[in-house]
């Protein structure tokens, strides 16, 4: 039976859709019947309700073989089988059948809760009150002159009607016990399968729901990115006017500006620029998220980028009283990268480092050439992947600032996350920088990680492969 055809509990328990064959092991049933026969010397046959013979301890009795020697006897023996098969016992009311004259069978019903499952046939036997073969039996074998028939007759088991009744009840009770155990096992196995199937169905349903929810979230995420892109764009347009016109005011195009007015306009201009930077970051982030930012990768050298970043940010560092140092390896091999975006990565990291480093501290940038095992790209197969070592350029930005706790190291790359998110925090910023950095590094098939600096501060490490890895 395939699982799909498996019966339900109700079909088994209510409709009782099972056969004797389903509940009893044919081999064991045969053994039990043989044991019964050897104990009581009474042959047993068991039929299922469909008429299949499930157990039969009797061969052909020697009396029948004897009778078959005569024509009338042969016919009588042939009729025995039909007679036995046609017997229709009722629940609790066995039927007595006479096979050949004087030879008896008893048929009784095997039932389960009012439903017939099969029949037990006991016999052939003779009634113990009948000591000699009846005359009708002699008539069947007239031509054999009755020689030896008394001997064959005596070979049959002889039982009183009381004894046969007791044996029948005993056998039926035993069978019904076996049947009950069989039914129990049958139901348990069905229930087991049904439960597993039900659990599977339930899990599949949940998986589908999760999948749907995931798809919906992905769609929402896409919509959010689109929205961000559109809004940023729309915000930028009027802001450009604000910055432009405040610039013109400062240049005196619209006439002389008083000192105090100039101060105000300068503030408008400065804040406008800040706002523009923020909007640009947002736009970058949404472009990166939606995958619409294209990286123009060309052969780039890491130390050049480091030098550029250091020279750009030296005035800022100077203003803050922080030492900005570079410690790059000479003659770095060129890597395939978008120099403008890599510069943005290092600027962002360095600006961050400067922001969180107190006066008198230092920020050190470096770029070195390294070989790393590719196995930690994920996807398993480390025995194969571990052998492939890829060349990377490792950039690091080390500061002597306040440092980042282990718990926060995981979160700082989330968009809008701030380690100190209180409104009174000392350092400004939108919390977008690192998430943009993360995405730009991803765009270069690179990795970013944070380590602790000794004795204090953090080191941001960005590794970018020289070539595309084989897995992407």
């Amino acid at each position, binding site marked *: 039976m395939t699982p799909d055809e498996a019966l339900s509990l109700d079909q088994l328990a209510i409709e009782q859709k099972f056969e004797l064959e389903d509940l009893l092991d044919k081999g064991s049933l045969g053994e039990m019947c043989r044991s019964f026969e050897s104990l009581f010397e009474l042959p047993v046959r068991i039929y299922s309700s469909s008429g299949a013979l499930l157990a039969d301890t009797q061969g052909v009795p020697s009396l029948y073989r004897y009778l078959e020697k005569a024509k009338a006897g042969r016919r009588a023996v042939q009729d025995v089988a039909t007679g036995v098969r046609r017997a229709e016992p009722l629940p609790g009311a066995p039927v007595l059948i006479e096979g050949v004259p004087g030879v008896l069978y008893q048929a009784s019903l095997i039932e389960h809760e009012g439903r017939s499952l099969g029949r037990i046939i006991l016999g052939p036997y003779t009634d113990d009150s009948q000591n000699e073969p009846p005359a009708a039996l002699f008539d069947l074998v007239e031509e054999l002159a009755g020689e030896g028939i008394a001997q064959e007759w005596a070979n049959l088991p002889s039982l009183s009607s009381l004894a046969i009744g007791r044996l029948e009840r005993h056998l039926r009770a035993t069978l019904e016990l076996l049947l009950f155990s069989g039914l129990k096992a049958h*139901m*348990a196995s069905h*229930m087991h399968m049904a*439960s597993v199937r039900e659990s599977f169905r*339930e899990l599949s349903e949940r998986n589908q729901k999760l999948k749907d929810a995931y798809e919906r979230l992905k769609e929402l995420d896409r919509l959010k990115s689109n929205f961000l892109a559109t809004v940023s764009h729309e915000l930028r347009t009027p802001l450009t006017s604000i910055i432009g016109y405040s610039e013109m005011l400062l240049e005196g195009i619209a006439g002389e500006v008083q000192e105090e007015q100039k101060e105000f306009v300068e503030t408008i201009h400065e804040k406008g620029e800040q706002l523009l930077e923020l909007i640009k970051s947002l736009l970058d982030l949404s472009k990166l998220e939606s995958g619409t930012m294209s990286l123009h990768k060309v052969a780039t050298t890491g130390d050049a980028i480091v030098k550029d970043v250091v020279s750009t940010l030296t005035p800022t560092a100077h203003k803050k009283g922080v030492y900005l140092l570079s410690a790059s390896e000479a003659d770095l091999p060129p890597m395939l990268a978008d120099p403008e975006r890599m510069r943005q990565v290092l600027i962002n990291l360095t600006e961050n480092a400067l922001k969180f480093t107190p006066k008198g501290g230092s920020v050190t940038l470096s770029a070195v050439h390294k070989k790393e095992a590719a196995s930690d790209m994920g996807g398993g197969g480390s025995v194969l992947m571990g052998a492939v070592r890829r060349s990377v350029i490792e950039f690091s930005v080390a500061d002597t600032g306040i440092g980042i706790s282990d718990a926060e190291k995981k979160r700082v790359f989330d968009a809008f996350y701030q380690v100190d998110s209180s409104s009174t925090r000392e350092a400004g910023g939108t919390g977008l920088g690192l998430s943009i950095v993360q995405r730009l590094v991803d765009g270069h098939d690179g990795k970013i990680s944070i380590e602790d600096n000794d004795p204090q501060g953090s080191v941001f490490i960005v590794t970018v492969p020289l070539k595309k890895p084989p897995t992407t």
Partner: protein
Amino acid sequence: MQLDFATKEMTIKLVYYGPALSGKTTNLQALHAAASGDSKGRLMTLDTRDDRTLFFDLLPLSFEDASGLKVRLKVFTVPGQVIHSSTRRLVVQGADGVAFIADSRVAETETNAESFVDLRDNLEAHGMLLGEMPLVIQFNKRDLPAVRPKDEVAEMAQAGREPVYLAIATQGDGVVETFLALLYQTWKRLEKEHTLSEKFGFDGRAFIANVAEKLGFQGSIEDVLAHAVGATSLGEVGE
């Protein structure tokens, strides 16, 4: 319910539901012990080695109505442990009536409620509504300490539609009453749906009286209903 017009047989499925270890199997065992020999079949328990119900217990009872209609009652329990939810769902499918066996201890209040919600959900999974299901609630384990007082149970019972019984299943107290009330509720529902009295000349009250007698209960169905905690007027419970 299954009706076989040819053999004039009706099979009714009753399910004992409730949280783990509330005494569902014990109820069936007590019922089995109470039933007279000719009406009960073997109690089948599919349990684990530690005697916890794994799939279900099944007690078959059969009675004959004066009209000649044979009524087979198949009384099931479900496994109470939370993890067997899918099995409970399978067992409760096609139920004609449900007896909810609750643990009377105050500490079990939440577990009872959770199991009741589970019953509702599992019925709904088969498109059946708890509100339309013939239902009896039993507060079992009255012999234990820290049980909810009878007055409180009665007060809460009056707010509900279903008859509520107190029981000590281990001693057989309240078991037969719960069962008879469930049978009565179920018969009312089946009668309404299938007009058994019209089709078969089936006399539900006489039938339940017959079952009560076979289970050794002295009294009429009205007595059974009057036994319910917080019963207001005779025979009106659950209308």
